[in-house]
């Protein structure tokens, strides 16, 4: 369970989020909103990449501000641009990075890397330079590098925005298949139709929080009003 308690966030004197309170328990949660609505900052609060200016964020009871390491082990984070997330030149090295940081022994590491690469159809690319992968494969590699650490929650910040349709579908399939709780920021509204919950942000506040069709209707109305 992730609890967001009365959280406000200010960056460089700009108010980003206003007194947000939420409890996230569903398995598939989507965060939508226009650009600059605060949704990207919001999800960065969930694994402690940003800490709230006011209020608290608790992941399974651990405060992101004081127990950052424990929180990061629980919450994996997939970024929009896989090029900024893949940090090693060779595919397998990149997947192993998180495991190395967790102190997983080499033999076990190898096996886990194999498993996750196999799951995302990247096993044959294992020894290849990561920059030679296609856009979709890169995003799958980024997801693999996070999932191999076996987090309880996966936060995804617009994982399909930079992809073409075919790759979008592949990545979306991969997300559907996650065993973990997934919290996804997205502009691709068709991807969230079968989610459990959709939260709509506008100007740093939540304007809807409901099942997908109701929340999305409210979102479209708000955008038309503006």
């Amino acid at each position, binding site marked *: 369970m992730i609890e967001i308690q009365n959280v406000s966030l200010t960056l460089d004197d700009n108010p980003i989020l206003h007194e947000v309170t939420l409890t996230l328990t569903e398995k598939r949660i989507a965060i939508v909103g226009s650009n600059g609505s605060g949704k990207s900052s919001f999800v960065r609060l969930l694994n402690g*990449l940003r800490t709230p200016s006011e209020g608290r964020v608790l992941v399974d009871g651990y405060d992101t501000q004081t127990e950052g390491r424990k929180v990061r082990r629980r919450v994996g984070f997939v970024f929009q641009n896989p090029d900024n997330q893949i940090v*090693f030149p060779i595919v397998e090295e990149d997947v192993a990075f998180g495991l190395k940081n967790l102190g997983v022994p080499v033999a076990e590491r190898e096996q886990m890397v194999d498993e996750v690469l196999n799951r995302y159809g990247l096993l044959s690319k294992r020894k290849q330079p990561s920059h030679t992968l296609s856009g979709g494969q890169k995003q799958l590699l980024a997801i693999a590098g996070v999932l191999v650490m076996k987090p309880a929650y996966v936060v995804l910040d617009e994982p399909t925005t930079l992809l073409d349709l075919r790759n979008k579908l592949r990545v979306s399939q991969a997300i559907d298949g996650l065993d973990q709780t997934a919290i996804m920021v997205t502009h691709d509204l068709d991807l969230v139709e079968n989610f459990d919950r959709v939260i709509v942000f506008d100007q740093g506040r939540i304007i809807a929080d409901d099942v997908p069709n109701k929340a999305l209707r409210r979102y479209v109305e708000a955008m038309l009003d503006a």
Partner: protein
Amino acid sequence: MLDLYVEGRSALHRLGPGWKILGLAFSGTVLFAVDHVWLSILWLAISLTLYAVAGLPLWRAWRQIRPALWLFALIFVVQVLLHSWQLGLLVIIRFAVLLLLAGLLTLTTRSSDMIDGLEAGMRPLHRLGVRTESISLAISLTFRFIPVLTSVVHEVREAQSARGLERSVFAIAIPSIIRTLRMSEEISDAIDARGF
């Protein structure tokens, strides 16, 4: 990434990079400590023999020296005018030997092996409080981002050529640098998010 290594199975290829670096340092020290033309000729012969041992054709050796030819000529002229042609010869041969041997190191050693050696050599620094994982990470990141930034620079260049600015240092450097620096924020977030 493509390095300057030339595939081979010779004894020199198999020798650890540390020994080769040591040999290079030793040669440099001896050649400068003993200012003698015959010694440098001997060393030149040894160097060329080593190229043969490594299975490298003579043109490989020539390539190491070629960029310095104009300088050789200049040095020779200066030395003849100021001192003697013998000194000129010594300086040029010594110079050539160092270029040949340094080139031999590069041609017979994979850069990944050099880096592994480097990282192994730095491990004792750990006890002095240096976080050696940071150094390894920095090296890996550089390897990873050279191709990424090369495409960034190419993109910027293409965009600027639409405005006829593809040869302007400003129009290329400023956007490339800004894009690079902007990326750094998300990359460091991504590294932290994976528990570094």
